[in-house]
């Protein structure tokens, strides 16, 4: 009687046979080639080794060839397989490179992208908000905007509370899509090291790559970093959809919706957050404000609404923390002001999903933005009645 392991019990006693026995089939395979027949005089072991060496050479060649082809494809055809973040960024990059900034330029995360519609404003404007981005990404996008000769009259920056706490999409979106280039990523890594704030590196703890190597691999579109998108995008299945998205976002001057439901009572991440500004994000946020102040471009900080379902579960200290933080930033940066309350609660019917405003919500919020920006857009006639500090 045994555990049922009778057959295994005898195994250790078996003496291992080394080396592996002669593989006649392998030899036959090699000898099937007439050119190899001359080698028949070699001993069987030598012949096996020769066959194996040839196999190894072919194997290595096949690996390099396949990997190289995939690498070329990921480097040249990101539009064919990446998520919508890519065409959205390409559209915004077009606006940036043509210096089409408008009188007002909006920077922020996906909430700002969905909630501020330039087409609904009576003055020219562009929405450069990017999904998943934090003030870190804004810093680099704003820097590119400041290279333009024609500057906007006002810059609006609007981030969700969580984006001051952590930039959890730094690698998955910003680095992958190419919003940040090698130099940008290295800049973040260096600042991160100087501040002893390793939150960005800690997002990819298990790839064990040196920071500079990781930055380079993202910049070079190292294919394993894109494998998920290649699979989910069916290799080239997203091309048409992405091209359409690019045209649409360009036509809409950077605005794009996320959820489009006629209402959402789904709970957003704010329900679980407690506020503590990240040192790294704070450094880039204040650097952005300083750069804009240096160029004498007024900045208005806004806070996009959250739905009632989230508000009910949210810790009130979160809103107070955000308000305190923004007030302290404004106090340190002349030319910057806050418009509107921090994290206002809006009815669920104005949300297309847990986070983002739907068409009705965006229209309502854009009307408010119009009001709030009047002091900068129309300094003579503009009213400051809704401005709050």
């Amino acid at each position, binding site marked *: 009687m045994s555990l049922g392991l009778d057959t295994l019990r005898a195994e250790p006693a078996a003496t291992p046979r080394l080396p592996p026995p002669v593989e006649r*089939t392998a030899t036959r395979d090699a000898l099937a080639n007439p050119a190899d027949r001359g080698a028949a005089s070699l001993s069987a072991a030598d012949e096996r080794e020769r066959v194996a060496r040839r196999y190894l050479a072919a194997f290595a060649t*096949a690996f390099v060839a396949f990997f190289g082809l995939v690498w070329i494809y990921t480097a040249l055809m990101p539009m064919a397989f990446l998520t919508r973040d890519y065409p959205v960024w390409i559209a915004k990059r077009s606006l940036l490179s043509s210096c089409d900034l408008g009188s007002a330029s909006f920077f922020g995360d996906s909430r700002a992208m969905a909630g501020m519609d330039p087409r609904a404003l009576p003055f020219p404007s562009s929405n450069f908000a990017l999904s998943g981005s934090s003030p870190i990404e804004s810093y680099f996008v704003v820097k590119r905007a400041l290279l333009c000769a024609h500057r906007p009259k006002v810059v609006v920056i609007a981030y969700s509370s969580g984006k001051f706490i952590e930039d959890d999409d730094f690698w998955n979106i910003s680095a992958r899509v190419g919003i940040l280039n090698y130099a940008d990523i290295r800049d973040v890594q260096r600042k991160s090291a100087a501040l002893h704030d390793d939150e960005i590196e800690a997002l990819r703890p298990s790839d064990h790559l040196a920071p500079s190597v990781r930055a380079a691999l993202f910049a070079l579109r190292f294919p394993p970093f894109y494998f998920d998108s290649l699979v989910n995008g069916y290799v080239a299945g997203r091309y048409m959809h992405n091209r359409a998205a690019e045209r649409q976002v360009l036509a809409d001057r950077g605005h794009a919706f996320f959820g489009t439901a006629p209402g959402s009572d789904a709970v957003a991440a704010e329900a679980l957050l407690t506020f503590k500004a990240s040192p790294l994000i704070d450094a880039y946020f204040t650097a952005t404000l300083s750069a804009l102040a240096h160029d004498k471009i007024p900045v208005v900080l806004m806070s996009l609404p959250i739905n009632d379902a989230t508000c009910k579960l949210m810790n009130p200290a979160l809103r107070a923390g955000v308000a305190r933080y923004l007030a302290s930033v404004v106090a340190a940066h002349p030319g910057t002001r806050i418009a509107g309350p921090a994290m206002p609660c809006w009815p669920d019917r104005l949300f297309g999903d847990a986070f983002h405003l739907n068409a009705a919500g965006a229209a309502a919020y854009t009307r408010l933005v119009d009001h709030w920006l009047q002091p900068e857009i129309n300094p003579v006639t503009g009213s400051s009645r809704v401005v709050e500090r």
Partner: protein
Amino acid sequence: MLFNSYVFLFGFLPLALAGYYVMTAFGPRVSALWLILISFVFYGWWNPQFLILFAVSIIFNYTASEGIARLEARPRAQTLALCLAIAANVGALIYYKYLEAIIRCLTGLGLVHGPVVSIALPLGISFFTFTQIGYLIDKKDGLVKERGLFHYILFVSFFPHLIAGPILHNREMMPQLVQPKTYRFSAENLAVGFAIFGFGLVKKTLFADTMLDSVRAGFGHPGTASFNTAWVAVLSYALQIYFDFSGYSDMAIGLARMFNIRFPMNFNSPYKAASVIELWQRWHMTLSRYLALYVYNPLALAVTRGRASRNLAIGRFAQATPGGFASMVVLPTMITMAIAGLWHGAGLQYLIFGLIHGVYLSINHAIRILRPRRADGGEGWLTHPVKVFFTFAATLLGLVFFRSSSVGAALQLLGGMIGLHGFDGLMLPGAVLAHLGDLRVSLLHSGLVQPTSAVGFINAAGGLSWIILLYVIVWCFPNTQQIMYRFEPTLGRVQAGPFAAYLSWRPNLIWAAAAGAALCLGVLAIGGTSEFLYFQF
């Protein structure tokens, strides 16, 4: 360092192989020294502080084994020395692996007060501890032929088996390590090793890791998992652990082969098993062997001796009696499987996993005793698939406990599997529903159908198809060892599998292209590197 990490694949492995083959020019001892060196680098990469513990463990056990050998003339003292050495090993294992859980449990019961100190778990401690305990026991029994410290260090530290097995036996490893042939370049072994490694990498990164999301959907929220979600999660987890462990074993076997060393088979298509006894002969085979050798057999022997001393029957007929069956079969089986369960982790759910399998094995043995095999040894054409199905279903129940964060969570998920948390309707795209006319309203109203977008439908159907395809691979295709059977991939004999005419590896151009593509696919699928499930053990 993970086998499926960029550092390992593009840095460590090429360097280790190149160094090894260069060192062969300087003789076997230098090559072996190189293997020891790179193995320690491999182990210390993750957390260098555990290198000291690892080194102390090796030196302690080697010294203890030498002491045990010297006490050969004094059996009682020798047994005492062995017990002390085992106790020290088990004590270290308990300290690092179980103490925190024990204190948490006692704190929860109010028996201990104060903060619970977190104890970091040294990588692979279960594996190198078990390996060395086995060595000590064999030393006491006089079964160890090679006694040199140098080769002992290499036996314990050789990196392919170091952190997740297979659990090696000195009698199958030491003879290979002392052979000069081991330390020569062999293109054939390198080719075979890379092929096996490539299969393993694909299993891990492309098959196992893609199951992660559906596993999390059920096991992450067991209290709300619907019938569909729970079943998909459990079936996905069965695939995930299968390909994860099988992939890891392949990679370890392939790596060892690159260095001219053959490992024992560790995983042999366990879901093809037609009984739970057979399952354990196929699943984590080296652990099963270890437990049989060092736990089950001594226990069974002690019980048998105890019965004999009390003049009770001990033969096969005695096993058919309730008392004999309980003491000679159930007792050692349950104890062994409880240890097997706890070996996998410090938690009640692991103990229950082990006990469930103990019950399965006991029932299986009872059936064998009470209903012997047919004289012709055959079984009906339908019988085998049915047996495989029931064995797999029984395995799923155990896996629910194995993967769950607690016993409560496991019970909640089992509740979901029998529909206690409701059912999700079949997702159909709006375009299809529009063609159903009045039926659409009633289907939607009844909840049997849910509307979804075309993309959502394609994604859901694609996910389900992927799971089905992987089960087809599991049940209908040969495993890695069977594909490689012509080149003796592991110690012991390997039989050809299904489709052997087409799916048996040879060193020709077609297989070179296929293996190159497979390795490329495996490397691509690394994406975000994930941990092996078996690392926690």
